């Protein structure tokens, strides 16, 4: 089963390339934000997977929990920026 987790992890890592493409080349900042958010949600799963590979999940769960919840704050802050300052493209 550990091998299965490793392969799943590799698959997720490769999958991260697609949101990363959006984050790097996205025309607007919101696109980048969507990309970063998607990377964050994959990271949460990956952290647990790494824990399973190390066979110490109980230690990694806390990190994933902190991660999943705190990622939200960054997204809120960035979108709050647009709600106050108009204009998605360059100012």
């Amino acid at each position, binding site marked *: 089963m550990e091998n299965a987790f490793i392969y799943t992890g590799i698959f997720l890592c490769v999958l991260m390339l697609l949101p990363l493409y959006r984050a790097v080349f996205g025309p607007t900042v919101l696109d980048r934000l969507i990309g970063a958010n998607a990377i964050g949600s994959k990271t949460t799963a990956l952290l647990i997977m790494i824990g399973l590979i*190390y*066979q*110490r999940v109980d*230690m990694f769960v806390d990190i994933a929990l902190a991660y999943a919840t705190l990622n939200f704050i960054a997204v809120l802050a960035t979108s709050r920026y647009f709600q106050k300052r108009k204009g998605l493209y360059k100012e």
Partner: protein
Amino acid sequence: MDAPVLADMLDFVIAKYNYWGIAALMMIGLYAMIAKNNLVKKIIGMNIFQTAIILFFISIATKWDATIPIIIHGHGAHAHSIHAADYMNPLPHVLMLTAIVVSVATLGVALALAVGIFQRYETLEEDNILEQLKADESNLR
């Protein structure tokens, strides 16, 4: 190229690739700090540089086939002996925890300075600021 040489190469790459990544990251950070014109960009470069060093320390601390530095079976550990090769080296982790804190602190102060600069000069571009400074000084004369 015959197979053993190739295997050696692979071993070599696996043994060192992290350090090459660190070198690349340090170069990125240093380049941003020296060559970029925008102050926030420089601050980002500074952070990348610091994280690269942290990555270096963590790479030192890894061991193949070792687990994270938290002892299994909490309090019963007196009974059976602990092999040092089974756990990652905790010392660099400690040092880097401190280094991360330092980098966050530096980030805060640097951003505060950048905000202060913007309030005065209305720009974050270094060359524009220097132009304004020059104009100010010639006005004083």
